[in-house]
């Protein structure tokens, strides 16, 4: 079946612009995660949804970052007033249940802020 998809795959933004990154998880998956992967680093946790509820947003680096999953399926990560340090690959992952188990990752969105 279809895996996790993300769009756009690449995004170039001028500093100060707002961006929105979309994640389509695997159908029926309860859990959804966002991670940020800076160049040469491992992914770092940003936020976690269980259905439509955002249960953990401890990894969001600033109040310019906002995520939502209003109907418990598609999620959007929004970054306001982008800064150069926001340049990274943003990965979305989904998991069938709310408990432990494999997370299925999308291909990521590469954001470059100029």
């Amino acid at each position, binding site marked *: 079946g279809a895996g996790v998809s993300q769009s756009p795959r690449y995004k170039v933004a001028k500093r100060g612009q707002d961006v929105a990154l979309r994640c389509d998880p695997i159908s029926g998956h309860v859990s959804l995660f966002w991670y940020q992967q800076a160049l*040469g680093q491992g992914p770092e946790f940003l936020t976690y949804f269980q259905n439509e509820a955002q249960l953990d947003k401890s990894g969001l680096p600033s109040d310019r970052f906002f995520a939502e999953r209003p109907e418990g399926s598609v999620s959007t990560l929004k970054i306001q007033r982008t800064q150069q340090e926001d340049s990274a690959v943003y*990965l979305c992952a989904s998991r069938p249940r709310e408990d432990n188990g494999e997370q299925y990752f999308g291909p990521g969105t590469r954001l470059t802020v100029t």
Partner: protein
Amino acid sequence: AQSVTQPDIHITVSEGASLELRCNYSYGATPYLFWYVQSPGQGLQLLLKYFSGDTLVQGIKGFEAEFKRSQSSFNLRKPSVHWSDAAEYFCAVDFPGGYNKLIFGAGTRLAVHP
């Protein structure tokens, strides 16, 4: 603080040689353990995971990993490397009680010489 260490940033092996990638974690109890592989422009693909039971786990593509509680390690091995194994490898742990988010190591980039 909980952390994951992959001591080797870059490893080069010859095709057909054996491989061992190291991973250590810092935590008081046994977490869930994962190895992911990331090829350029691709998302993360799960190679194998350890939750409990037999400490030697088999994964896809001929990889295996051994959990050693006394060393807080989960090293990835492959007896004979293929050129297509060239990629970045990430060890990740899922610490209980943290909404099951993954904490990743910084990754090991594997190059394979013909």
